[in-house]
């Protein structure tokens, strides 16, 4: 007991951990409040739901239906009335005619709601359009729940039909078994009672992915602190005691891990629960979970409250599994770089499995059972399903939970064994491992310079050679899986631009004018046909058939608008010419400031260089370094040089694959033309060619990348602790990027990574000297820090 307390105390007294925890907790809270602004779904406020929930409270399902239906009919009717009134005001006589027809059609409701429509009260949202959207959502939900038994019966009937048919071709025995198993389960659900509940609250509580993300970060830091910190500080010797004592220690660690996992989950998911409970309100927590439209196909027999508990416990299970994985890895491997790397590979493999295994394949168990698939806890319970592993079929819910528990036990046992073995490994038993450790690539090599030693430290001691190999594999895998096919629209655009490519001349002008004329003709023909249909000269069907060819012609009209726009632009700017620009827009990050390439690059950069700058401090060799002639400034200089060279490789690999990818897909034509041919860059000097701009773009990117390297080094020297340096670097570098991708912010927090912002304002070029100055400053502080 005491040891558990001690382990927990170690966490609680770790100031930086607490700090990060509080920051994330706070961000989560902010996020809850601003979620709607960041990712707007619609204008419906939480208040609307809350009000409706309280209006529905205490009613039975039938009354709820009547209540919702009345509201919905009213909103719809008043909306129609508004439409009629608007059409009436139109200048177009046809529209006015249509308005009258509409009124006649809806005479009854028109008269009924006409008075009210003059000054209606929109109780929930305050305006007619939103109210209608809101009530539509609610009504759809209600209908789904209300038809619960009907849809169950449908499923049962359907499966019966399939079973009957399949008697004759029973070669797919397994799917048949799955179908009959499913129908058995649904049959047992027939006597479930449903009483509609507004689904928003539970939906929100159970599907906020950003919280998962935060919890994972916390868990990550946490598991590392429990193991690696200790290793780094060489405390292991102190704990080394009796075998019994070691066993107690490791078990306490695992218990502490479990307790804290639960606590962290309670604090984070509890906050979400409370927040949505308060802002969205809640109906009857004791209604069956099938009363929520989201869960009508679920076959767990619990009420909503119980479901939320199950959700929470499954979440804890998953998080605990992950933390045990990290925990085990950090016992097994000695350096944080290794742990990070292995973890990255594991997640990558899981991701490939998740993406690669099809839902319908005969091993679809692995589509759900992997670290990526399991993160959506709702998916475990939402719909009854059978998962297949070759000829075995098992119910999704039970197998996923069962396998997680099994894995947890496996990791616990592995961790205990590994820990005990680590403790007693003075006599190294494993001869093969010993041999491998003895294997020396540089047995007879002598180095004569500080530089070569820094290279050796980076590539071999810190395993960055492995990292760069993995990076290459990773990038090539990505490249291989890239889809190089153009969409129909893109293909049309590309073909046209290929024809027009180059300076505008008479011939091209003619082509464009001709195409435009064709479009005009086609649309004229179309409207003539419509007239004829209206006057009765052609029947509806005849009209459709006759207009088909013209509609085909016009289908590409909207794409051609882009070309037309370019045409007009070139007429105004004689220096510009036709350039197929999709590839350039991608390359220059015109519409998206950050690409995934950037993120991979940053992650690999941070992982590979972080350790190098702290290893002297971590090992204590710094004390010798300080007393040696070449130990200070020279070492610092060489370290920076080595990391910059190394990262340049990463940069080149990432850049080259990106450029080749874009080149293969879109091509990068007319590089020698003026950059203003890309009309987004119309404010750049017209005598600058696209190629020149490309070079400038990559030079700026490169020096910005160097800034990132120096920043990581600065941070790592500041903290002198791998875990925190890693977390802080990732925070500072990655979060702006991720935010950028999620929310498509045009305002990039890292503008220097994207000089293409000069298209808004030439003054952005001022960033270049600023980056250079920051680089010099960072370089100086890094060297000083080591001095």
């Amino acid at each position, binding site marked *: 007991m005491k040891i558990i307390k001690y382990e927990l105390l170690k966490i609680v007294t770790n100031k930086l951990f607490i700090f990060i925890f509080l920051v994330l907790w706070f961000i989560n809270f902010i996020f809850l409040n601003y979620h709607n602004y960041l990712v707007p779904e619609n204008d419906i406020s939480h208040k609307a739901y809350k009000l409706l929930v309280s209006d529905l409270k205490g009613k039975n399902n039938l009354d709820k239906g009547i209540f919702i239906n009345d509201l919905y009919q009213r909103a719809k009717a008043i909306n129609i009335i508004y439409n009629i009134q608007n059409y009436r005001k139109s200048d177009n006589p046809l529209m006015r005619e249509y308005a009258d027809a509409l009124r006649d059609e809806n005479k009854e409701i028109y008269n009924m709601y006409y008075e009210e429509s003059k000054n209606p009260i929109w109780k929930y949202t305050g305006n007619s359009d939103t109210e209608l959207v809101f009530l539509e959502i609610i009504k759809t939900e209600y209908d789904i729940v209300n038809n619960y038994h009907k849809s169950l019966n449908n499923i049962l009937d359907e499966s019966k039909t399939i079973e009957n048919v399949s008697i004759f071709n029973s070669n797919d025995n397994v799917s048949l078994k799955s179908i009959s198993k499913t129908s058995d389960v649904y049959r047992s659900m027939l006597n479930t009672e449903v009483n509609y509940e507004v689904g928003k609250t539970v939906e929100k509580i159970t599907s906020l992915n950003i919280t998962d993300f935060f919890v994972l970060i916390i868990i990550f830091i946490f598991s590392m602190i429990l193991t690696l910190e200790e290793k780094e500080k060489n405390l292991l010797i102190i704990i080394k005691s009796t075998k019994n004592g070691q066993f107690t220690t490791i078990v306490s660690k695992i218990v502490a891990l479990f307790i804290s996992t639960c606590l962290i989950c309670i604090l984070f998911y509890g906050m979400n629960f409370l927040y949505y409970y308060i802002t969205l309100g809640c109906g009857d927590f004791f209604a069956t979970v099938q009363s929520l439209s989201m869960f009508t196909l679920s076959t767990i027999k619990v009420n909503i409250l119980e479901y939320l508990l199950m959700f929470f416990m499954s979440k804890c299970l998953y998080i605990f599994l992950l933390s045990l994985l990290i925990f085990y890895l950090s016992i097994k491997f*000695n350096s944080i770089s290794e742990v990070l790397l292995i973890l990255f590979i594991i997640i990558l493999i899981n991701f490939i499995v998740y993406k690669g295994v099809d839902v319908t394949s005969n091993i679809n168990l692995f589509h759900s059972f992997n670290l990526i698939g399991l993160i959506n806890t709702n998916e475990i319970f939402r719909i009854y399903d059978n998962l297949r592993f070759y000829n075995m079929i098992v119910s999704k819910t039970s197998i996923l939970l069962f396998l997680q528990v099994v894995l947890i036990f496996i990791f616990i046992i592995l961790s205990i064994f590994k820990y005990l073995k680590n403790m007693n490994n003075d006599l*190294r038993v494993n001869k093969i491992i*010993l041999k491998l*450790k*003895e294997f*020396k690539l*540089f*047995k007879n090599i*002598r*180095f*004569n*310079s*500080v530089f070569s*030693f820094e290279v*050796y*430290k980076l590539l*071999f*001691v810190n395993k960055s050679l492995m990292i760069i190999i993995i990076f290459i594999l990773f990038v090539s895998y990505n490249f291989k899986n890239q889809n190089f096919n153009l969409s129909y629209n893109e293909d049309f655009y590309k073909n046209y631009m290929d024809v027009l490519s180059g300076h505008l001349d008479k011939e091209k002008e003619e082509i464009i004018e001709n195409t435009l004329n064709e479009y005009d003709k086609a649309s004229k023909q179309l409207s003539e046909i419509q007239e004829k249909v209206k006057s009765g000269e052609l029947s509806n069907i005849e009209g459709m058939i006759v207009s088909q060819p013209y509609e085909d012609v016009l289908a590409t009209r909207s794409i051609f608008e882009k070309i037309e726009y370019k045409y007009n632009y070139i007429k105004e700017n004689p220096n510009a010419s036709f350039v197929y620009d999709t590839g350039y827009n991608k390359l220059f990050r015109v519409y998206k400031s950050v690409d995934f390439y950037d993120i991979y690059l940053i992650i690999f950069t941070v992982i590979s260089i972080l350790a190098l700058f702290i*290893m002297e401090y971590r*090992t*204590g*060799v*710094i*004390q*010798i*370094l*300080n*007393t*040696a*002639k*070449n*130990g200070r400034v020279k*070492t610092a200089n060489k370290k920076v040089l080595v990391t910059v060279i190394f990262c340049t490789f990463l940069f080149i690999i990432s850049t080259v694959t990106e450029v080749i990818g874009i080149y293969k897909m879109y091509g990068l034509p007319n590089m020698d033309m003026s950059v203003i041919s890309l009309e987004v860059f119309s404010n750049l000097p017209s005598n600058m060619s696209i190629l020149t701009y490309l070079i400038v773009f990559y030079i700026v990117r490169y020096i910005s990348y160097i800034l990132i390297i120096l920043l990581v080094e600065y941070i790592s020297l500041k903290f002198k602790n791998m875990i925190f340096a890693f977390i802080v670097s990732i925070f500072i570098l990655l979060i702006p990027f991720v935010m950028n991708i999620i929310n498509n912010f045009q305002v990039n927090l890292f503008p220097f990574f994207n000089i293409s912002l000069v298209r808004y304002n030439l003054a952005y070029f001022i960033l270049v000297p600023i980056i250079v100055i920051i680089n010099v400053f960072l370089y100086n502080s890094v060297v000083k820090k080591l001095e």
Partner: protein
Amino acid sequence: MLEIKDLNRSYGNKLVLKNINCKLTNGVYGLLGPNGAGKSTLMNIITTNLKADSGSILWNGCEIENLGNSFREILGYMPQGQGLYNGFTGYMFLNYIAVLKSVPKADIKSEIERVTKSVNLMDSINKKIGTYSGGMKQRILIASAIIGNPKLIIFDEPTAGLDPKERIRVKNLLGSLAKDKIIIIATHIVPDIENMAKNILVLKNGVLLEETSSDKLIQKYAPNGNLEDVYMSIFSNGEDL
């Protein structure tokens, strides 16, 4: 000649070294004092790992701060705690230290061989340091302190964590070093320096109590005993306070 003048150093408001004054000439010195006396702090200041608050350290009459790298050229240091790269082989580590100390390229090979022999690590010099025992780690650190033939060598707790057999080996090793240089051995273990040190510096709570030969110390503090008794008589009442 190493001369320390009015040296003070504190951590926060805790004075760790109080007005240290002494002059050291060629020969072996033992710096004796219990844990927390300030030995490592003093050694770290001499080796320019730390800065003093006030006072100065002179090497042959010149401030070491002004000498900078030319002082570091004649310095060898074995810090307290086994600061080593586990991923390096012993050979590689010595090679690295030689490069850091800018031992001439042509001499590196012979220097490594010389120090390896003198610490008796020939058999395991090509093994990874991570596989070394505690005593081997201490010996490789000693080797790295004496590589390049420095004129001032400082050992901080060279026998910490060693078993008695290893301890005697390390002591013999230190005793065998040539006497044409200044060697300082900081320790709280009396036998480590007994019969070896020309002079003994006694450090108590940051104050340099004595700087004299062990015979004189025995005369003064424990006329009928040995150096161990001197240590007890100086420091045991200190603990009572």
